[in-house]
């Protein structure tokens, strides 16, 4: 190789690759905190990182570069700049089911994600907290007993239904919006 004469190979080692990749895992410079090396960046192909200097010189005029796996700290971008480019909302989990909730007599609406609840009791408890009311006892035969507030929802067909009648999974797919009605209207 052209440059071997200039460089004292006994004293130095020709290495331009990922620090610590010669014999070890490339996790050499991984940090445990947020500023750490993005795991996605590290190469799985250690050999391609250990590129001796001479190979990369003008001998390779054209674009026949060695397979470029990502090198530590290159390009020189701070980690938060890489992190931030992934939108916060692009979570691997499926998107939430957001619906509007209104209550009679209250001038503003709320929005909730039905996906975060496991069932009706949780949903009702949250609605009660949000709007400061008590829903009463639910029974299949009589609906909500003991309160003038009744939770209802509009389903896909546009009909107003009583919350709790259908199985939960069916409910979250068919519910378009929620309305907490005041007893006097029923």
């Amino acid at each position, binding site marked *: 190789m052209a440059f071997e004469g200039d460089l004292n190979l006994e004293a130095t080692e020709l290495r*331009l690759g990922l620090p610590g990749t010669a014999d070890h895992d490339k996790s050499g410079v991984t940090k445990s905190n947020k500023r750490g090396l993005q795991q996605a960046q590290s190469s799985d192909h250690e050999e391609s990182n250990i590129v001796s200097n001479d190979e990369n010189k003008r001998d390779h005029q054209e674009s026949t*570069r060695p397979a470029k796996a990502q090198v530590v700290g290159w390009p020189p971008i701070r980690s938060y700049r890489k992190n931030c480019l992934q939108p916060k909302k692009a979570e691997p989990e499926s998107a939430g089911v957001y619906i509007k909730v209104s209550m009679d007599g209250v001038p503003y609406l709320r929005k909730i994600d039905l996906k975060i609840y496991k069932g009706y009791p949780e949903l009702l408890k949250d609605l009660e907290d949000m709007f400061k009311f008590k829903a009463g006892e639910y029974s299949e035969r009589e609906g909500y007993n003991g309160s003038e507030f009744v939770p209802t929802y509009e389903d896909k067909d546009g009909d107003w239904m009583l919350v709790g009648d259908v199985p939960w999974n069916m409910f979250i797919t068919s519910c378009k919006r929620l309305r907490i009605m005041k007893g006097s209207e029923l």
Partner: protein
Amino acid sequence: MSENNHLHHHHQNHCSPSPAETMSEDDEPGRPQPPDPGSKKTRNCAAVHPSPHPDRVLEIVLEHVLQFLTARRDRNAASLVCKSWYRTEALTRSHVFIGNCYSVSPSRVTARFPRVRSVAIKGRPRFADFNLMPLNWGAHFGPWVATMGKAYPWLERVYLKRMSLTDRDLCLLGDSFVGFKELELVCCDGFGTGGLAAIASKCSQLRVLDLSDTEVMNDGVDWISCFPEGETCLESLIFDYVECPINFEALESLVARSPALKKLRLNREVSLGQLYRLMVRAPQLTHLGTGAFGPSEAQGASDQEYDYASAFSACKSLVCLSGFREIVPEYLPAIYPVCANLVSLNLSHANINVEQLKPIICQCRKLQVLWVLDSVCDEGLKAVAAACPDLRELRVFPFDPQEDAEGPVSEVGLQAISEGCPKLESILYFCQRMTNAAVIAMSKNCPDLVVFRLCIMGRHQPDYVTREPMDEGFGAIVMNCKKLTRLATSGLMTDRAFAYIGKYGKLVRTLSVAFAGDSDTGLKYVLEGCHNLQKLEIRDSPFGDAALLSGLHHYYNMRFLWMSSCHLSRQGCREVARALPRLVVELLSYEGNEKMDDGAVDVLYMYRSLDGPRNDTSESVTIL
């Protein structure tokens, strides 16, 4: 060295020294006795008393004059004139800048400069930002705050860059400095929300809390609520990269009771609706960093759509705008009302295209600083060139920072900018392809360039058109840009490029080199030619011991030298350490490499120190 309390007193335009002052350990022979203690005189005391020794008069005058000297280079020069000037300058210096925290010990600083009100300290070298430095390397604030806490009870301002602090350090800071006013932490780490809470609660005079680019661990402490009740003195609150949720109600209340607040930069946890609420409470803002710039789908969020444009309209003093995280571009028109007055615009987190950029940028006629993502493409940069003739600083960041990604910006964008923005002083440009011609054009069209940083992301990439090295381009930059002090290179570069840099880069203070050069000769050119070189950072370049040894004449004048993954050996580094006893020569090794004794050096980091090698090193550090 004597601490002449006479000068303290005269500093306050008061000519009567107290009895304690007569006990100064002055080593000048032939000094007269000090005037009667207790007698109050005016400034003309020289005329009333038996005339003081001529040297004393000179010192008094000097002290008054030196108060006007603020630039540290001027002060450093003044301190070298003679002992008397050295003393007087030391006593009148109120701001101390420490470029390398390990170059001097805290006690030496406090001993020399007793009346300091403001301190700036820089720690790790820049390459640490890119994971090139082993964990826990150092740069701890602890020893500094401990020493300064005792020596400078009246300290008002601390600026730290790339240092590590603990919660305890921040507590101590709050406890030690009663009138503390300004805390600026840039690229720092090591502490959490608990530390912030300490600052908020203890520093009742706090005007500035700036956490730019600083990592804060989320300990769950609601630090925003820890500011004292009632009106605050806050002028600047910057936490845009603090990745912790914050108590919005507390923030809103804080903003509402901070009438002096001019700079507010929010983190991305703050929604657009919340931003609106803050803006209507603080129309006096001059600098605003938005949080998320789009509607939030968070549970329970109000469905209301605010008139965001009116909020921006109301901020008539807004000159600096940033943030735009998680942007929904449809909301961008809200900022139209402020564009005409904007001096600085940071869209570098906004993945917008040229069509989304154009309507904004063409209204920003006064713009001087612009940061964007390369998603705006060459066309977007052309629009910038057409709209912003006053542009001084441009930074183009890559949306996809990988070597072989698509490159939306190229030499075309650079050329356009050089033609439209002749006043350009600073540029940072990430791209996948570049030509010498465009770089040469910029060197000629933008003679005021002080900072030129080009990052061609593909390593060893030649000129895209001619396939030649980028030597001529960088050569033109150092030749034609006579004010250039900072240069970062990339792409295929031979020793010739370094010959140019050494020959013409006489004012260059900071040089950043990566994957470049052919042989030791390249580095030799730089070390022999660049007389003003202060900071040299090199990675993955074929420079070895011979090159290292060619810089012995210069290393004491530098803030640091960093060389990683080059061709250095322990032997060579040891020779340097032997030749220059006051140089601290650190060899850093990456995890797993500490025990390797093959003589190869992972990282060489060296700097001059007045107080010898540090004693807080970890296993990965060897000091020769």
